[in-house]
């Protein structure tokens, strides 16, 4: 199954790759990283923020694509294919450069702070759960909700909590466990909402 989805990703993401886009992306992220490092003067925090920038851009791109697909009613083509529609949406917005860079940042972070591995996992799960939640709302509201205006509010509320917990202070066992429990519950809820939105889309 995973191999099947990787093959789909490779075929689908071909359209997002070009020589210019690769060079452009590298320059863009280098500039972000240099600026962040100049301001914060901490490499690991700059890397985490760079990751969040990439992720938020990715979320926005997916919302935009999903809205476009629902507006034009082309979303039905995703429903007609034998692959989970949410995976197709994630592919549509994905760029291989973003993916490679994100993976690199995660590896560097985990290697530098092995004690915070579980918390990093919790953080990632929360981010993805939020992503699915936002996509579900976009689909559920069927383009009536200005989700791109609400998303920054969600990020502003959740991001400091997540950053505070996982990066700055919280390292107790209870803290780690509660973060994990919260993130997995949120992910479960967001999947439920996505399935409900899918049933009620048409």
């Amino acid at each position, binding site marked *: 199954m995973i191999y099947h989805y990787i093959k*789909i990703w490779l*075929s689908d993401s071909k*359209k997002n790759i070009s020589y210019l886009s690769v060079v452009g992306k590298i320059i863009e992220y280098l500039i972000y990283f240099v600026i962040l490092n100049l301001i914060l003067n901490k490499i690991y925090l700059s890397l985490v923020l760079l990751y969040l920038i990439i992720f938020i851009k990715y979320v926005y791109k997916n919302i935009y694509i999903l809205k476009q697909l629902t507006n034009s009613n*082309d979303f*039905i*083509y995703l*429903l*007609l*294919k*034998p692959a989970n529609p949410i995976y197709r949406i994630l592919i549509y917005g994905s760029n291989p450069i973003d993916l490679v860079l994100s993976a690199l940042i995660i590896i560097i972070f985990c290697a530098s702070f092995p004690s915070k591995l579980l918390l990093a996992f919790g953080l990632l799960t929360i981010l993805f759960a939020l992503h699915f939640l936002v996509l579900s709302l976009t689909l559920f509201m069927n383009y009536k909700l200005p989700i791109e205006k609400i998303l920054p509010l969600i990020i502003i509320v959740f991001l400091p909590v997540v950053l505070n917990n996982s990066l700055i202070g919280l390292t107790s066992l209870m803290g780690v466990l509660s973060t994990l429990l919260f993130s997995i519950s949120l992910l479960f809820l967001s999947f439920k909402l996505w399935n409900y939105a899918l049933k009620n889309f048409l």
Partner: protein
Amino acid sequence: MDKAIIVDRLSSKVLKKISFTIQTGEIVGIIGPNEADKTALMKILAGLSPSTSGFVSVLDFDPYQRNQNFLKQISLVLNQKNELWWNLPAICLFELNKALYQIPEREYKKNLDQLISLFNVSKILKTPVNKLSLIQRTKMEMIASLIHKPKVLLLDEPLLKDFVFDYNRENGTTILLSSSYIGDFTDLLRRIIIISEGSVLFDGAMEEITTKFATEKIIKATFSEEIDIKSIANIGTIKKYSFPRIYISVPRTTVTFAAAELLQNHPVNNLAIEEFPIEEIIKNIIK
């Protein structure tokens, strides 16, 4: 023969208790004046919309469950919609579909070769979609929909129809195609289903429409000299007269007597008895 599609007392927002079955390998035309009825039916059969009551089965699946094994065996092509990527050659989409439908390499090549020859598109396979004409894009769209060799093909108001006979003969695919215009079907199909205002008005062979609904026939005649039109008014209803040609509508049961009387008492050069055009009969049914 197995039943590929079973629809029993199906109702939805626009459909009212419609029933029909379609055998495996059959080609059936759905016609009707309202596009919404036909599209709603197609979407229910493809699993995109739910029904409010009744029973639907496509290849023994409940379509609305959108089971992956079901989706691998069907294809829906909607008019005015396409999934081609504008800046890339259509072959990229075929490759994606190969991955999505998990088609083995050898089978993919075989299917693609068959479709390339059926639609005659070998020279434009690597041309970006935005440089193709509308008909070329439609052909590519059709190939993308057929690359996984679906067992059931649902075509909603398709621009291309002529290929369905050849495709059905070669692959045994069950094909359901809808149109608002009966002229699209007269040479293609044996069976049609007429849907109007959400209900099935007719379901049967094309020839049955004329015998069942056309109570009259048309006598076409040409005269050698001008006649007094009143003298033939008792034969039937004169539809059109423009010397030398006349068209008379006559009840089916008395058509031979009417033709004999016309030949005996009037200067007739040529005479032919014809059925009413099927388009006209269907227009009357729908009215």
